[in-house]
């Protein structure tokens, strides 16, 4: 994983986000092992306490499990991952709609812009037929 951190919020929160995205995208598959605190601290060049805090947060979200002897693994609870994926998607959609509003497009206009863009990518949207992609 490539690690890059923004200046405007705590680093542990950004580690949580990036691992969460890894889990949602399948880059970190269910049941796969996560690196140790120190290994990740070295890889991301951050404080080990920061990594520890991020792991605790991921544990409390249920996305990561700690085993007494074998380190940490990604949850195998597919429903939980699906729920987090849906929640993350909703957040992105809300942000998109807010952006569109500030550009002067209402929700219906935003949806039709979205449908148009998706149609160009060959996806079926709102009952429209998928375009033939060559």
């Amino acid at each position, binding site marked *: 994983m490539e690690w890059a*951190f923004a*200046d*405007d*919020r*705590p*680093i*542990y929160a950004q580690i949580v986000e990036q691992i969460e995205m890894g889990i949602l995208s399948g880059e970190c598959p269910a049941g796969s092992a996560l690196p140790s605190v*120190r290994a990740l*601290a*070295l890889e*991301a*060049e*951050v*404080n*080990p*306490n*920061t990594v520890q*805090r991020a792991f605790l947060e991921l544990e409390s979200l249920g996305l990561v499990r700690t085993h007494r002897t074998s380190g940490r693994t990604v949850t195998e609870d597919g429903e939980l991952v699906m729920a987090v994926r849906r929640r993350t998607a909703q957040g992105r959609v809300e942000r998109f709609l807010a952006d569109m509003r500030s550009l002067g497009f209402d929700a219906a206009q935003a949806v039709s812009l979205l449908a148009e863009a998706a149609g160009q990518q060959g996806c079926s949207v709102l009952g429209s037929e998928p375009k033939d992609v060559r």
Partner: protein
Amino acid sequence: MDALLDVRGVTKRFGNTVALEHVDLMLGPGRIVGLLGPNGSGKTTLVKLVVGLLTPTQGSVAVAGMPVGTQTKRLVSYLPDRTCFDNRMKVRDCVGLYADFYEDFDIAKAKEMLAALGIEGRAAFRSLSKGMKEKVQLALVMSRKARLYLLDEPIGGVDPAARDYILETIIRNYFEEGTVVISTHLIADVETVLDDVVFLRDGRVERVSSVDAIRESQGKSVDQVFREVFRCC
């Protein structure tokens, strides 16, 4: 009291110059702390008071509950802001010096770190580049199993690859009971490895905070906040 470092009401004057004024500071174990401030703000003076190279004009400094003295030197591993080895020494003499002086020195670890740098024991210390000298000293300092590590300007003008090596060495060797204090004015270089920051200004402690708290409350990096606080310095 489980304060690892306890600085109380410390003032340090050099003649008419006040280097530190009424400094109170407590640090617990298991933290990496940035001692930050512009040049001349008193960072090196504070570090030297904790090491015992200077004595306070007023106030007291204690490490692990003991006043600074012979006993606390066992607990404190210090990286000075300048080279502390004699130019006639070979690298293995430097290692030997540390092994003789400090019972918590892990000679195997030091040799391993020097080998990783590609430095041979028979090399003359003076033949090393400035950056390499700094790395050798850091390797020796971090090869001790101390309670308190005081690193005075560990990245004073070295190249970015050397900076990465230095941070990596600190992360790799840091352990739960130890606390590492990094004195620097190059905040952006060290910010991601810090738990807490202490801002010094004109010999006074301006602010003590966790890095997370600054980022959370201000929505900015410590480096940005520091630049704003010290804008006209």
